[in-house]
């Protein structure tokens, strides 16, 4: 598969990062909160990494040290977490579409700020972000553990006291409140953890795409993430992961199909130029034919029937 890896290393890593980012949106949604704030924290994390790696530890010859990348990711997590609490406490009093709108506003405000600050480089952004790896595929050594960690986190969370509290809020906030779950506390918690994940992905992404600017992490990103989660399935953490992987690959897959020989010229041309038409239509169809997303808890139950019982009985 070396040729495949060479051609699609970037795409594969993007898919993994998209899956992680989708989880950042999924976490607040676990508590029933549709927040489109993730792109804002993603942007923040990216700027933090870009600034640290180009200005604080200016690149020397050779590869950029991986421990510094990890440091940046940690800083991004902390900064996003703090900002998450600051934004989350007032914003999470809002419900439903109003929360989504407030978080869209938050992302837009961040974007305008980043256009105007010197340190973020305005529209040009920050470029020449140094590379910690010789090849793109090596980003997997950070991206995969990150995804696994986040998935493990989500999986364990779903079966813990905290996770139950979040899901209870999603199912019926009022009843959960009456059963002793503090809604504000758990909503802010989920929002903040989501923010931290988004920040970490942003930090890694700044290296991964070599540059960072105000076009990263905008409303459009939020829309994509929402599609990842809802098309993938919003009732289990596996859904957003699959949604992120599949929907990130989809436009490129259409490009790939066009390159496969043997197609009539007009069709190949349409697959290339019209791939976003197909993408849009597939998203719309996805909502109709997979109203609960591609991956549902019921599907997982069927796939893993029995195993779960044994584990739980232990």
């Amino acid at each position: 598969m070396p040729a495949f890896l060479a051609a699609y290393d970037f795409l594969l890593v993007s898919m993994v990062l998209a899956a992680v980012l989708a989880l950042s949106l999924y976490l607040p949604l676990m508590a029933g909160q549709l927040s489109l704030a993730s792109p804002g924290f993603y942007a923040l994390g990216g700027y933090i990494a870009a600034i640290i790696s180009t200005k604080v530890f200016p690149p020397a010859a050779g590869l950029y040290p991986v421990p510094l990348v990890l440091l940046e990711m940690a800083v991004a997590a902390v900064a996003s977490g703090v900002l998450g609490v600051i934004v989350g406490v007032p914003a999470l009093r809002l419900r439903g579409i109003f929360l989504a709108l407030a978080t869209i506003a938050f992302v837009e405000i961040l974007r305008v700020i980043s256009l105007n600050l010197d340190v973020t480089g305005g529209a040009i952004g920050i470029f020449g972000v140094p590379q910690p790896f010789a090849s793109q595929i090596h980003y997997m050594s950070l991206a995969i553990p990150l995804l696994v960690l986040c998935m493990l986190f989500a999986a364990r969370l779903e079966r813990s006291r905290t996770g139950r509290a979040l899901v209870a809020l999603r199912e019926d906030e009022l009843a959960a409140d009456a059963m002793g779950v503090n809604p504000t506390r758990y909503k802010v918690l989920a929002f903040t953890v989501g923010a931290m994940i988004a920040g970490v992905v942003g930090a890694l992404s700044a290296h991964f795409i070599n540059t960072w600017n105000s076009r990263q992490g905008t409303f459009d990103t939020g829309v994509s993430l929402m599609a990842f989660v809802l098309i993938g399935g919003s009732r289990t953490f596996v859904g957003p992961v699959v949604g992120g992987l599949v929907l990130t690959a989809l436009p490129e897959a259409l490009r790939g199909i066009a390159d496969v020989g043997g197609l009539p010229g007009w069709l190949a041309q349409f697959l290339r130029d019209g791939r976003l038409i197909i993408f849009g239509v597939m998203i719309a169809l996805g909502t109709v034919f997979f109203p609960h997303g591609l991956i549902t808890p019921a599907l997982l139950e069927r796939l893993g029937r029995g195993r779960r019982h044994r584990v739980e009985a232990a």
Partner: protein
Amino acid sequence: MSAGAGVDVLGVEGLTCSFGGVIAVSRVSFSVPRGELFGLIGPNGAGKTTLFNLVTGLTAPTAGRLRYRGRDITGLPPHRIAALGIARTFQNVRLFGELSALQNVMIARHVRTKSGVVGGVIGLPSARAEERDTRRRALALLELVGLADRPDERARNFAYGDQRRLEIARALALEPELLLLDEPAAGMNSGEKRGLSELIRGIRARLDLTILLIEHHVPLVMDLCDRIAVLNFGELIALGVPAAVQKHPAVIEAYLGDEA
């Protein structure tokens, strides 16, 4: 069922609540001593559920005070009130429909457990032990209400009557001292209703509970309750033992219609 040191479990003092000019509960006062099974009846729309919402903090009163074991709980948020030991069921059944019966009950152990995000996710020994304990207690409660055979069934798939019993199990998971039941017999057939009466009597005795009960099914209330309060148009129009209340002219007028 001793009255204890004389401190009532619940004290309602001049409680008033209005929504946009409509008075739902008007200057209602009563107190419930420890261990009592206290019935609340009245026509639909009389303010019974609003009273429950006030006691559990879901609705803020316009005036008046609420005391729980002598402590002023007026204005506390619902989760704080729940943590103090007041649990409830809902008139329209508000289970977490997509979750299993077991999970529904386990959620209500929230205030009696304490493992945090990190402990739960990493699986610290203390958290694991707590999780096992939560599961064990939840299963025991399902057993108590007679649903132990289907712990993994999704709540919304249960029959109406079973959903009501599941809701009771969930409320009990909170280990409440005061239990508020809002029309627990609604949607049940006569057999189920009899079973429910037994259940309510049983849990009161076994768990040393004080119970506030809203119920439409008059025979059930008369049969079960120590005392009954009658609400009409938000006002408390009668309060006393079942036999007395049943004969109260205002009650007959308001609740049973102009039969006379």
